[in-house]
């Protein structure tokens, strides 16, 4: 009990002693970075639509292009610099997800195609995929029962 109290006290003291990033500055940088990535996405979407490609196909081209750009920049050792400045602005868009798959692939390539890339490529993205699928499945079940109950959206 006494030990727990001391640990809590120390934790609190350390918290006061430890400098942290400026939240507002970080928010502004995230806004700029995330916004810039979305503008690039919008540009690709508009370009595709301008070429007469169907809306949903254009959207796929947009995602594909952004993923490609992110993987390329990860390979060129540039993407982490963008994230260092832009924080969540670079992490949240689809480009961040692509980076979280590409960077382990590069790092673990030396451990082999199977045990390196194969086993470890999803070390970071894995939880996102697992819980993403699980959440959409749960929502799907709820949606199914809502329809059964006659609720229309």
């Amino acid at each position, binding site marked *: 009990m006494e030990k727990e109290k001391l640990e809590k006290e*120390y*934790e609190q003291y350390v918290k006061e*002693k430890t400098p*942290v990033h400026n939240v507002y500055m970080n928010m502004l940088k995230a806004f700029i970075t995330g916004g810039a990535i979305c503008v690039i996405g919008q540009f690709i979407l508009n370009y595709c639509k301008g070429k007469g490609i169907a809306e949903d196909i254009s959207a796929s081209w947009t995602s594909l292009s952004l993923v490609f750009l992110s993987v390329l920049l990860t390979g060129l050792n540039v993407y*982490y610099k963008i994230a*260092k400045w832009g924080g969540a602005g670079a992490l949240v868009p689809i480009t961040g997800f692509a980076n979280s798959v590409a960077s382990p692939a590069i*790092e673990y390539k030396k451990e082999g195609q199977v045990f390196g890339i194969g086993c470890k490529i999803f070390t970071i993205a894995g939880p996102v995929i697992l819980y993403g699928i699980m959440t959409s499945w749960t929502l799907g079940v709820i949606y199914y029962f809502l329809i059964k109950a006659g609720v229309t959206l």
Partner: protein
Amino acid sequence: MIKGSQSIQFDKSPFLISSGSIVGKKEGEGPLGNLFDVVGEDDLFGEKTWEAAESTMQKEACLLALGKAHVTPEEVRYIYGGDLLRQGIATSMGMEALQIPMFGLYGACSTSGEALALSSMAVAAGYGDLMLAVTSSHFGSAEKEFRFPLGYATQRPLSAHWTVTGSGAFLVGTRKSHVRISGVTVGKIVDYGLKDSQNMGACMAPAACDTIIQNLEDFERKESDYDRIITGDLGYVGQSILFDLIRKKGKDIKPNHMDCGMVIFDQKKQDTHAGGSGCGCAATTLASYILPKLEKGEWKRILFVPTGALMSTVSFNEGESVPGIAHGIVLEHC
């Protein structure tokens, strides 16, 4: 001679005969850049993996230390070596070429202290005339082991350390030199329950405080009896916590404290946040910056306290705290 509860004062102090230091590119660009024996052009040192690069650094550091003293590997009795990686693989791979009987150590970033303590004890006990103590760390292999792949986009907290890519080796023995290891204080595990592995300074500061206070008590010395009290890699956050903790014990080391993690990088220019860390941090700073000052007699007696955050990725995920440890090595000009 046994001193107090945790220390030894050597009746016949072993000498620190020579040292070797080898570092990566970023360290070479830092404030101590031109003091290191070898600065790598890139961080792979001609190898294909970070782990192999780290082991090459260890081997080269040993050869540098041996070369300066004109000693061949066959003359060395034992090696005490360690690194940060699982199963100490960098040490095992690097030391194979030397064919010297070896003890593999793990003390996280405090390993240089552990290796120096054990090698000097063995020499003082008469179990050999020449021993090698060597440690290393590598930014790439450490990030991979403890954190994320290098290319992963993440923002490091301001309390995070930057693992030093480097290796330091020390030849300890009975052959006369200008620096001797007059005593050691072996540290205990000290854990204040902190779970933030991105704030290692705060995890290690209590251990550093414990060892420093114990050393002063065991040897019946004052803070000012040391020209410098030098911690391994507490960094900016850890240092300010250490000052507070020491003050609570009624002592003050502010005027003569130095931290290797704070001198090895230029915090502002090199963007290293809390400072350098890793087994290589304290070892290369000792070899390149501290020892020359002792050899010249600029400093007469110092207390070298490498600090280690003994975390594992498994225990961290299981919600355990990060235990700290620190070993004290008393180095004197002679």
